[in-house]
């Protein structure tokens, strides 16, 4: 559905102060003198009860526009359109009971037709694909500029100043259109001011929690995530086979194995690292407190999969041996237990792209974790931890990071010559709501730190290795676009690593 022109509305915020329930009509399908419902007016809709007539005779048939009317209760003296304001549509209006009042032709602005008494009606086109960008300055003028007309029976009222909406109102009424208008601009900008390939600045703080073995707080824009890592000792029974714990992708053996590991929190891989995400923390009005919903569960599973795909933690470093002296590693040292890592991610504030923030928090928290030295005490037959000696976790040297993109498809318009798509790097929640297609890339690039600055390691041949790609929803993204996204992912990874360096958690 395509309708016309720009939206310009001044003083509508005041007008909408009289706001009442909203009704919608489809206009543009019926003929001039069609009187299907027999109420005497020329439109096909049954609006006799409301006393409203909207006749779309002037509309180009290919342009159906959707009108939103506010306050369907006209004043008692129904001088139609009795206090109606029309915005930005190519419409001819025929009043219901006064055929002698000239229909008002609207071009790109609306005209004040007749203003009597209190303001009752505001119409505005909701869908519009005009290429012109709505002005980003709020245009607001007080009600007093809309002077009432005493009698407009004989002559047409003088053209009134156009009504304009404030941009925040436009954004609330029609978020999709608002976003599209911004992206159709050249160069395309997003409502938050970033360019499509620009991601948000983020801050990282580690080791701020006293009881956790490792912690990190990541803030990217308004998305804030806290990750805490605790190690718990897992003693293995004498009959247990330790190799079950030591591989990230142990092959399935039997149904009972799968069942048992499903029972223990679903950790079917390795089982030593357990991830958990909490979103129902009042972080966003969309996720009220209560049991985890779909997004929290999906995110939990995705992060668990990421930890196992990337194999960040070296599982043999989690072993607890049966020996007194740690410097003596005999091959016969018996494994008495393992450190089991519990990764808890808590979302404090949610403004889109929680996956990237959560994963980065996990990587930083693992990097900053320090576990006490644990050893098996033979006399007491228990594992003892030496709280004076701490050692960091043994992790991978090249750290992988995720980058998420959202795809917005722009509608067909003459200027574009066909629908195009825009990929937005690091979407916030407003953009996430409008997009239905998402791409996440987990990639690693080997960087070398030269004089405090990052440069690509020449040994790796400037290659970025991809470890996971997930694309879901929609059908518009092409394989070539995925390649360009990988390059953006590399630059984002560089920023992550620089931030880690600042926290003195250098990867090298």
């Amino acid at each position, binding site marked *: 559905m395509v309708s016309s022109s720009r939206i310009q509305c001044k003083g509508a915020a005041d007008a909408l102060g009289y706001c009442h329930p909203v009704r919608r009509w489809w206009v543009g399908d019926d003929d001039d003198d069609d009187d299907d419902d027999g109420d005497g007016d020329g439109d096909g809709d049954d609006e006799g009860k409301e006393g409203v007539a909207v006749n779309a005779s002037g509309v180009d048939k290919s342009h159906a526009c959707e009108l939103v009317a506010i306050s369907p209760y006209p004043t008692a003296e129904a001088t139609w359109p009795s206090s109606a304001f029309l915005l930005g549509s190519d419409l001819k209006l025929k009043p219901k009971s006064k055929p002698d009042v000239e229909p008002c032709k609207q071009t790109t602005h609306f005209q004040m037709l007749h203003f009597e008494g209190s303001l009752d009606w505001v119409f505005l086109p909701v869908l519009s694909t005009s290429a012109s960008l709505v002005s980003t300055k709020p245009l607001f003028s007080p009600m007093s500029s809309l002077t009432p007309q005493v009698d407009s029976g004989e002559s047409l009222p003088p053209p009134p100043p156009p009504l304009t909406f404030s941009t925040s109102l436009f954004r609330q009424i029609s978020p999709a259109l608002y976003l599209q208008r911004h992206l159709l601009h050249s160069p395309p900008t997003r409502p938050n001011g970033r360019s499509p390939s620009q991601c948000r600045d983020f801050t990282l703080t580690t080791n701020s929690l006293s009881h956790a073995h490792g912690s990190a707080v990541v803030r990217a824009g308004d998305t804030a995530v806290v990750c805490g890592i605790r190690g718990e000792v897992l003693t293995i029974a004498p009959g247990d086979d330790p190799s079950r714990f*030591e*591989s*990230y*992708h142990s*092959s*399935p053996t039997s*149904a009972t194995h*799968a*069942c048992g*590991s*499903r*029972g223990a929190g*679903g950790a*079917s891989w390795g089982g030593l690292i357990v991830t958990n995400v909490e979103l129902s923390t009042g972080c966003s009005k969309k996720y009220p407190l209560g049991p985890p919903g*779909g997004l929290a*569960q*999906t995110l*939990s*599973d*995705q992060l*668990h*999969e990421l930890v196992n*795909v*990337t*194999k*960040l*933690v*070296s*599982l*043999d*470093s989690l072993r607890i041996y049966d020996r007194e002296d740690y410097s003596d590693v005999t091959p016969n040292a018996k494994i008495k237990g393992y450190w089991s890592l519990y990764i808890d991610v808590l979302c404090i504030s949610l403004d889109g792209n929680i996956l990237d923030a959560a994963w980065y928090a996990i990587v930083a928290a693992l990097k900053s974790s320090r576990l006490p030295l644990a050893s098996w005490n033979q006399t007491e037959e228990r594992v003892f931890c030496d709280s004076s000696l701490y050692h960091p976790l*043994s*992790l*991978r*040297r*090249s750290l*992988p990071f995720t980058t998420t993109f959202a795809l917005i498809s722009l509608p067909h318009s003459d200027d574009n010559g066909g629908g195009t798509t825009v990929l937005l790097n690091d979407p916030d929640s407003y953009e996430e709501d409008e997009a*239905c*297609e998402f791409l996440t890339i987990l*990639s*690693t690039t080997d960087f070398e730190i030269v004089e405090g600055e990052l440069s690509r390691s020449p040994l790796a041949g400037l*290659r970025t*290795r*991809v*470890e*996971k*790609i*997930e*694309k*879901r*929803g*929609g*059908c*518009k*993204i092409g*394989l*070539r676009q*995925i*390649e360009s996204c*990988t390059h953006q992912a590399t630059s984002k990874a560089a920023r992550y690593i620089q931030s880690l360096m600042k926290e003195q958690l250098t990867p090298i």
Partner: protein
Amino acid sequence: MTSSPLVPEISLNPLPQSDGSCQYTCPTSRTTILTSVNGPLEVRPKDELPNHATIEVIVKPGIGVAGVRETRLSSLIHSTLKSLILTNHHPRTLIQVVAQIVQAEDHTSLPLLLTPLLNCTILSLLIAGIPMRTVGWSVHLAVLQHPPKTVKTAEGQVFRLGRGGEDEMETEESEQIVVRNPNGEILGQAESSHTVTFSKEGEVLLIESMECSQGSGGQSADGQGWDISDFLRLAEEGKRICCEEGVEIIREALADRKVF
């Protein structure tokens, strides 16, 4: 065609009471899925969308109760179906898809389950007569370093994909060994697993690719990962499989049915 080892065993409308159903068994991984589609149905007011039909996908596991893994599978299938089903044909209704995992080698492995789930769901949507924009098909590819050891593979299941690059020579090392629809054992030996779903027109609907090599992690996992150009070549091959063979499989399966 029906006796070819690569063609899945499809049984249409095994559940007579539902609007559309399908049972799908992958011949090589022996994963069996049963899906049932009902709709357009009456929808709960809180789920109602004014201009579109609401799609609800429920995945039921073979063992135990549904957990986070099943929720994730449902959300992946839901996002794929949203771009296939013409939801504005039946606004304010519900299209409900229930998928039951009947048999799987590993009930917890996402890659082994995703492809059969998607294919089975698409077939049952066609049977149910839900208006769709186009059809799609999914295939699961696993990339191995060496040809699979001690596992029997079907004819045509394993193929080699040249890495390409600056030199024209395709030596043994420069080729990737790709297995189509692997079973659990082959997947255990694989370096990476790729589930790709394409529509008939070649649009990308879903990609779930991940690194899945064995190991105990830490520094030994430092060199893992694949190059993006290798991935694109693999995806192109997947596209060919989905658009040609996948669509052919759908046509054959539906060819006998004159009345749905």
